[in-house]
């Protein structure tokens, strides 16, 4: 037997198992299993005191077994679809604003002398290195009722004869912090793309009579589309699942999908419905990622 075992487990094969085995087993246990459990949980009833109801119970009055109830509930109450639509609009708006802000910056860095590029990129990443909550908290101060920005905005509104507004705890506050936190995710892929453009293309366009705007719109912009798509995916996906920013800077009506999920797991403790919402979010994310990959893949060599 020992001889046969030796024949089958060659050193190369053993190495292969030793190297890929541990991370494989760990991720199987703590990533794949939890995901599968969540899918299964979405087909169960909620437990009486949170968690999941038993699969079988002797008391027929107790909710038990498997059900499609959570999915039926999700589609029957328009509140939930509305939160999904609101979250998708928020993610779109954030992505668009990030794109508009990141583009000139990425273009400037890409067209700067090589030795200053690293520093300019570092200056984009540096604020990003401070804790996420600190970056969100900073906007609590900037948008607070006594802040210079609030006072200025409200004295202007007053001058125009309009009602004063509250900047903090509003969808506006949520949007601005979303942009702030995700901006580097847009700048970096855009820069990586723009840096690879051959300047000779712009010279050629100029020689052929294209003005500055035409050179941008017909040469630089189309070539940068893969960078735009990958940056957009990197912004859109985390925004879609964000719960902390609406939680800290939003009002009671500014709930997004993430807040809804958090509420099911930690608030009302309806885990099956929380799982269903999470699966809906996953489906939305996969659709977006697939779309971005498809769009980015269509464009040629600058990906």
């Amino acid at each position: 037997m020992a001889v046969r075992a030796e024949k089958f487990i060659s050193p190369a094969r053993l190495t292969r198992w030793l190297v890929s085995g541990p991370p494989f087993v760990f991720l199987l246990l703590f990533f794949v299993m939890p995901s599968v459990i969540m899918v299964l949980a979405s087909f169960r009833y909620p437990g009486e005191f949170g968690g999941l109801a038993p699969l079988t119970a002797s008391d027929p009055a107790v909710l038990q077994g498997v059900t499609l109830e959570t999915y039926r509930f999700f589609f029957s109450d328009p509140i939930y679809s509305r939160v999904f639509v609101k979250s998708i609009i928020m993610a779109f708006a954030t992505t668009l604003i990030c794109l508009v802000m990141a583009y000139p910056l990425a273009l400037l860095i890409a067209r700067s002398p090589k030795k200053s590029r690293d520093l300019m990129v570092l200056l984009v990443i540096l604020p990003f290195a401070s804790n996420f909550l600190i970056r969100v908290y900073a906007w609590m101060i900037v948008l607070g009722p006594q802040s210079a920005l609030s006072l200025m905005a409200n004295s202007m509104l007053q001058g125009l004869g309009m009602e004063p507004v509250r900047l903090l705890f509003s969808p506006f506050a949520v949007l601005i912090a979303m942009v702030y936190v995700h901006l580097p995710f847009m700048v970096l892929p855009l820069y990586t793309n723009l840096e690879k453009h051959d300047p000779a293309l712009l010279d050629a366009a100029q020689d052929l009579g294209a003005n500055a705007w035409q050179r941008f719109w017909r040469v630089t912009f189309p070539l940068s589309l893969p960078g735009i798509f990958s940056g957009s995916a990197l912004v859109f996906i985390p925004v879609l699942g964000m719960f902390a920013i609406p939680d800290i800077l939003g009002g009671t009506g500014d709930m997004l999908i993430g807040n809804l999920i958090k509420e099911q797991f930690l608030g009302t403790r309806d885990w099956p419905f929380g799982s269903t919402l999470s699966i809906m979010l996953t489906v939305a994310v996969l659709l977006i990622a697939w779309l971005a990959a498809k769009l980015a893949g269509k464009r040629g060599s600058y990906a």
Partner: protein
Amino acid sequence: MRRGPWLWVAALAVYAFLYVPLAIVVAYSFNDSRLNAEWVGFTWHWYDVLLHDEAMLTAAGNSLFIALVSSLIATALGTMAGIAMHRYKLRLLTFMVLIPVAMPEILLGVSLLLFFIQVLNLTLGMLSIVLAHITFSIGFVAIIVRARLAGMDESIFEAARDLGASPWETFRYITFPLILPGVVAGGLMAFTLSIDDFVITFFTAGVGVSTLPLHIYSMIKIAVTPEVNAVSTLLMLLTLTMIVLASKFAPDVLKGKA
């Protein structure tokens, strides 16, 4: 190169947008007032409050411990995963490594919460946080290590084998020294991600254990005092120091991270 004035104006405005809010936090940490409103005068008071805040210090200690343990284990597992992804092109493993990096954090957080309580029957605390942090860090380490391997000449490994090196010797004397900068960069990345993480910790921490981000969150939610500004400023200073040190002693590492 074409860098028109409008490009400069737009770019500088974006840099200002990035830095002004944080500068305000730093400034208010020295303000002698309970409110984050007008400037009253200079004080060290909020730093003094911070140094005597038991709960905050305990939370900081927890964060440090969790980051150390989880980044060590994640670095080992992530390095293995990176090598396996590069060498054996295992599609399933690659998928399992990359998905947790790409998906919204909340999904990993709630699925782990469900798994820890419903399946493992685990009391949430230090152990559940460490396991969760390892899970989301592995991918980042693996990506960095794989990138390092991808840039290498395969013939070195063949040469080692031809000269009679066993797989272990090839790894010990050839592969490992070559990927070491990537491993260190991955480890630092895992450490930073762990010490910074809020979302996944929020779902896997339970009631007993607090980390620095969790503690800051509860302060922001319940009662904002300028002590938050002080701790924010110190944390920014710490990150800045780490980046400066990294660029001085291991410029390679910083490049691997960026």
